[in-house]
């Protein structure tokens, strides 16, 4: 008796359909990952009992493998990316903040004195530039010039890890 009411092919189709409904760009990225295929080792058996040889060949993923590749890619966006931002925020929090623009003109000891040591351990505001220096600016100013990095709670990351694990179990078609 089959363990699933659906096939791996149907599951992949459904995942891609739902992804496309929510974010066509993310769906395209995941499709690229799925279409990348994998390296496999093929074996050639020459006629006449000659020694067989092995060679590399790029082959498509099976539907089951494609589902796992898609989940790995979604995990990069949904779990790794928030953890990466959390780590960046944490490491920046432990750094001191200099009052001047540059240490030029300060003596070596002054360089240490002029830092604002109390900033160590404090949350820092971190932003990534969206409108870059060389970008030709449109007449209408951009809605957002920079993107602020915000930490995510461990509980939210944990929830999403569980969602991913549950889906991985539903994508397990091994007998």
């Amino acid at each position, binding site marked *: 008796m089959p*363990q*699933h*009411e*659906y096939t791996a092919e149907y*599951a992949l189709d*459904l995942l891609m359909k*739902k992804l496309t409904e*929510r*974010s066509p760009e*993310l769906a395209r990225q995941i499709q690229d*990952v799925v279409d*990348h295929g994998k*390296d496999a080792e093929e074996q050639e058996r020459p006629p006449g009992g000659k020694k067989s040889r092995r060679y590399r060949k790029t082959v498509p993923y099976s539907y089951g493998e494609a589902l796992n590749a898609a989940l*790995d890619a*979604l995990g990069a*966006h*949904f779990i790794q*990316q*928030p953890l*990466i*931002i959390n*780590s*960046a*925020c*944490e*490491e920046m929090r*432990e*750094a*001191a*903040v*200099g009052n*001047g*623009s*540059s*240490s*030029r003109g300060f003596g*070596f000891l002054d*360089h*240490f004195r002029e830092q*604002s040591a109390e*900033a160590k351990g404090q949350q820092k*505001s*971190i*932003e*990534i*530039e*969206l409108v*870059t*220096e060389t970008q030709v600016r449109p007449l209408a100013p951009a809605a957002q010039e*920079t*993107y*602020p*990095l915000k930490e*995510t709670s461990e509980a*939210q990351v944990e*929830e*999403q890890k569980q*969602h991913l694990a549950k*889906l991985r179990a*539903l994508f397990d078609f091994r007998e």
Partner: protein
Amino acid sequence: MATLSDLENAIDALLDHPLGANQFQLVRRVEEKAYEAYIFGLCLRAVRELGATPILRGISGPPVPFIFRGAPGQIHSRNRNYGYAEFALNGQRFEIHAGVEFRGTSDMTHELDVCIMRSEDSDSCRQQPDDPPAASLIAGWECKFYAGTLDKGLGRAYVGLIDDMGSNIRTCGLCSNTGHPQLRDYFQPRGQS
């Protein structure tokens, strides 16, 4: 038995979570740069572990907020108050930068995603606007955030980049959240992984 309804609900739960598809729409433009910020943060941690204190600075004043470049740029650029970090070790001053362009030994300029360089050279390039020379570079990392397998071409580009950065560089690497089995082989014999 896993039902169709189980499958639908599980996909919806993943995609509709606050860290799901909507969050991707917000951060997709900065994912790669956020990864550079992560590697920059690991450099800060390494400095602290060596007993030094990293100090965050901005090109034009206190780095509030601390701004990471969205594209490769010049170390002397004041287009925004771009951030960097400074630290002193063994009587020498160094700086950690992200997204700054260097002049290679061939005179071609190259962006280093994250790097450590001598403060003396960065001071000089800020005072008299110029690209820092390859010789000022102590360490450099290329940072790639990928959802799938890493492109093999990135490995070739990295080798070409480091080859043009002279012989002062002490440590370097291609950092990524993912990999490619052939890239591991490509780097291994040369000791570049």
